[in-house]
């Protein structure tokens, strides 16, 4: 099992956070969307560090490849004016900031001070293991999720249909 240096983690973590803040802060929606894409890629990197290559691949495929595109399409479809809204932040943004800051600090403190059972990396779970879990133990949720996806497709099409004039 390959070990990664902590440096890699810090770099990737930094990227994730920076781009996440970017998403939340940009006034221009497209800028936010692009920042989000970069954030996702960095998260994929994090997955690699965690020896979850399958997940990393899935992340890139699904989030970067599909969801982000979808969002960008939605943004394009709904841009009536180049400038979006006069007011970007809502009235309670300061309250939210305070709340979020407090929550982060609290959580970090809690998590940091907790005792963890093992400090070492476990084995790298092989893909076969994951596949075995999905198709044997969790076959039922798997089927249900596929149904959910079907419903989501139908629903999205129905919702976004244009009214016939």
């Amino acid at each position, binding site marked *: 099992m390959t070990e990664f240096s902590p440096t890699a983690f810090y770099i990737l*973590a930094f990227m994730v956070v920076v781009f996440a803040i970017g998403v939340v802060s940009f006034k221009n929606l497209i800028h936010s969307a692009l920042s989000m894409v970069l954030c996702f890629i960095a998260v994929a990197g994090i997955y690699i560090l965690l*020896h979850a290559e399958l997940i990393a691949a899935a992340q890139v495929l699904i989030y970067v490849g599909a969801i982000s595109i979808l969002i960008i399409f939605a*943004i394009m479809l*709904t841009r009536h004016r180049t400038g979006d809204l006069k007011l970007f*932040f809502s009235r*309670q943004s300061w309250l*939210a900031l305070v709340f979020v800051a407090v929550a982060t600090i609290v959580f970090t403190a809690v998590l940091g001070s907790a005792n963890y059972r093992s400090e070492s*990396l476990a084995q790298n779970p092989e893909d076969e293991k994951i596949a075995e879990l999905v198709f044997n133990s969790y076959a039922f949720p798997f089927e249900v999720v596929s149904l959910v996806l079907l419903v*989501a497709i139908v629903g999205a099409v129905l919702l976004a249909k244009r009214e016939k004039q």
Partner: protein
Amino acid sequence: MTPLQHYLILATVLFFIGGWGVLARRNIILIIMCIELMLNAINIALVAFSNYSPHGAGLGEVFVFFVFALAAAEVAIGLAVAIAQYRLREKLGVDELHDMRG
């Protein structure tokens, strides 16, 4: 070898950044994007736990799979609703979309 806490703290920070965006921004599509950020944070936490636990390895990844699928579905529906609202009203400010009140 980075300890587990680091990943968890990362996940936490990412989660609350997304949370602040959800609460603080007005455009609904941006809110959906921030929700995706939060979901990612969750995924990171799940995978990290899965990685660091001796038994139950692989379970986190399985969960993450499902999260991927559901997140995709949710984004699709959410955007469809947003587009439908936009068509009706030409507004995407969340504080202007307050018809369902009483």
